């Protein structure tokens, strides 16, 4: 089978891209032709964040337009709107989260929801997403396969590493992504330190954004841009992962921590029910109950037997968890069955094209409205007037005009503006 994955930014490290690369590379190993279809040419940065990235065939969308695929799978939601550009027997969506929740802007949320409006093949990794998709789009087909735990990148330790001294807490995630809750996590840790809880802190981040956090006056050890095959070494240095993200798909990082004999404290975020059990392998709090995290940290720092109980069960969970080979075989057998059945939804291509067109026009309008500042364009402004307005804006932004504006005082500007408005109105 020839399977195209439409991807966004594949060159940089992310959990979502890791899932795509695991599936694509292992489908390739099983004898299928997996192709990464990118919006444009991709420049890889060495060393690569994922060792299989260079092995996989990559095509730009323009190149892929001339090819035929058995399956074309959108991944990051924006790529849904490019599906129509590829000729495929089956249009699908490797859906890892409800990405509407990633955005604050209403227009992105509304556009994201449209990506569930056609009966595609949905391949997804979490039960909450299966439920969401099937309720929203009952005409679609849904293939649920749990992500695997990579035994190459996260080989399970034999037993939780023995450690003396203070509790070691690891924070994970980029600073600048709101729903990842990293600044909030450091606030909780600061509160715990103020209340006398004894611990040391590390931070694993794809990007620290230049931040150098401290907790209790002590600098936090930052582990930044670590290649995926070395991440387990960082996890192995800590007892507990504290991760307060508010949106997750299947929620991989705690499982990766489990593989190295650590436990986790998290919110009851989507995805936790895939493998986390409060009081067995981890501790969870509802977001409204975040004050209790300090009590949990105090408990873990003073009750080594309870910490050992959680760590032991966490490791047992990781050992029993499926691996990427099994997950990929399940996806492959699911796709093979559809292929053998002759199932197709190629008739959706015109609808996908129409949605893409509407998406493009709408975003253009939003863009124009935003450029208009507080006075979005009125519906009666026709295309000719829009061109004139755009020219006028560019004229105002030109270097000579801006230089002139600097020379003119505010009072004179106001007076000229008032006079011009009077003349024109």
């Amino acid at each position: 089978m020839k399977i195209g994955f439409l991807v966004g930014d594949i060159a940089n490290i992310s959990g979502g891209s890791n899932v795509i690369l695991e599936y694509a590379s292992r489908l390739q190993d099983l004898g299928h032709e997996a192709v990464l279809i990118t919006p444009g040419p991709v420049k890889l940065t060495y060393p690569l964040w994922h060792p299989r990235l260079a092995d996989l065939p990559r095509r730009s969308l323009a190149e892929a337009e001339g090819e035929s695929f058995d399956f074309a799978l959108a991944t990051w939601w924006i790529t849904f709107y490019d599906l129509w550009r590829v000729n495929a027997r089956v249009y699908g969506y490797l859906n890892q989260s409800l990405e509407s929740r990633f955005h604050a802007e209403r227009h992105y949320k509304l556009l994201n929801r449209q990506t569930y409006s056609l009966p595609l093949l949905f391949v997804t990794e979490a039960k909450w997403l299966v439920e969401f998709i099937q309720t929203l789009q009952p005409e679609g087909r849904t293939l649920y396969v749990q992500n695997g735990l990579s035994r190459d990148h996260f080989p399970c330790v034999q037993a939780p590493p023995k450690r003396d001294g203070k509790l070691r807490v690891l924070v994970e995630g980029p600073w600048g992504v709101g729903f990842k809750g990293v600044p909030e996590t450091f606030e909780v840790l600061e509160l715990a330190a103020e209340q006398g809880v004894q611990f040391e802190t590390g931070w694993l981040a794809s990007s620290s954004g230049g931040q150098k956090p401290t907790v209790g006056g002590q600098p936090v050890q930052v582990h930044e841009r670590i290649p995926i095959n070395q991440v387990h070494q960082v996890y192995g240095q800590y007892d507990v992962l504290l991760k307060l993200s508010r949106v997750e798909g299947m929620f991989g990082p705690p499982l990766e921590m489990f593989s190295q004999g650590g436990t986790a404290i998290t919110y009851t975020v989507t995805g936790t029910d895939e493998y986390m059990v409060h009081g067995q392998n981890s501790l969870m709090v509802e977001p409204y109950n975040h004050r209790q995290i300090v009590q949990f940290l105090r408990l873990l720092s003073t009750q080594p037997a309870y910490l050992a109980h959680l760590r032991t069960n966490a490791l047992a969970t990781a050992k029993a968890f499926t691996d990427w080979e099994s997950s990929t075989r399940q996806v492959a057998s699911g796709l093979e069955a559809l292929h053998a059945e002759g199932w197709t939804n190629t008739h959706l291509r015109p609808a996908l094209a129409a949605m893409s067109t509407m998406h493009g026009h709408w975003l253009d309008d939003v863009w124009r409205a935003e450029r208009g500042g507080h006075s979005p364009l009125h519906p009666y402004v026709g295309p000719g007037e829009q061109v004139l307005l755009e020219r006028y804006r560019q004229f105002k932004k030109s270097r000579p005009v801006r230089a002139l504006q600097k020379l003119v005082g505010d009072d004179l500007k106001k007076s000229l503006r008032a006079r011009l408005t009077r003349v024109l109105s």
Partner: protein
Amino acid sequence: MRVHPPSPSLQRVAFVGEPAFQPHVPVQAAWAEVRFFPVTDGQWEPALDAARAWDANATLVFRPQDLTPELAARVPGGMRIGVIPAPLFSAEEIERLARISGPDAQGFRWLTYLETPTSPELARLPLLQTLPLPVDTARCPTGPRLDVRRMLVADWASPSAEALEDLRKLGPVDVLSSHATPEQMSQALEKAGTLVYASRDLMGRFDPLPLLAMAHGLLVIADTVFAGEWNIEPEDEFLYRPDGQWARALDEVFRMPVSFRAVRIRAWQKMREAFDASACFQRVLHDAHLFADPMAHLASLTSPRPPVAAPAAVESAAAPAAPETLGAEKLTRPSRSLAAVPN
């Protein structure tokens, strides 16, 4: 949320409170036998005696501030927890709670409070955790009925007469009376597709109706929001609109249903993720034992198996002619027929 199975000694859990709290008590639970003992006409003794006769191992009492020290001493079970479901302002009530709760008190070992305590007097109480009033989602429909357009307003949280008139032009509107019984409230929620809600306070703080509506799969449109720490996401799980935009919002919902079905589904899911009464009270009891005596709690636990299902791909399709499975068992949801509306 999945919680470690409780100690085998925790078999029967009693809930005691006014009948209005019944929708917030699990009708059944996989982790223990549960039963609600209603307090009628302010008479606590019969309810507490019935719970004692039932031989409850643990008891959760709603509005513990209503109990005298004598009554608090009669609460049965080895673990007794008071649930404070609405903001507490009375110094007298806080003082009473201080006397009847704590590790050495003849009453409650722990209390829960709906939000982060705002006064030092409240903060000094033996608060186990923050717990807004949860919802027994098992009493709710198994999925949002996405084709229902009926609107519901509550007479205590109603839009202005003008806004209500605009809503009536769009479709049928039911008005829920403040005198409605829990059953009548539940029936009204089951008939409706949207709750339109006006409030001067944060939603859910004094009134559980918005949470109940979301658990029933309704779209909630309100002129206010939930407390930020509840993490109920505006635009993704409810719509925050000023009073003057309600008719326009409903018009959008009816004209562009695909855009807003997702909001109803997520609201319904969120209630089960973070506000489900069975899970919330199971974790309350778990943590009550854990924090009361970590070593005894640890000793009481049985060794569970790793919480990991055998790997299996599960495929599902709604089309009648579709094959039964691709990989393993078919995933079935009782809500399918309710949710099956053409897009």
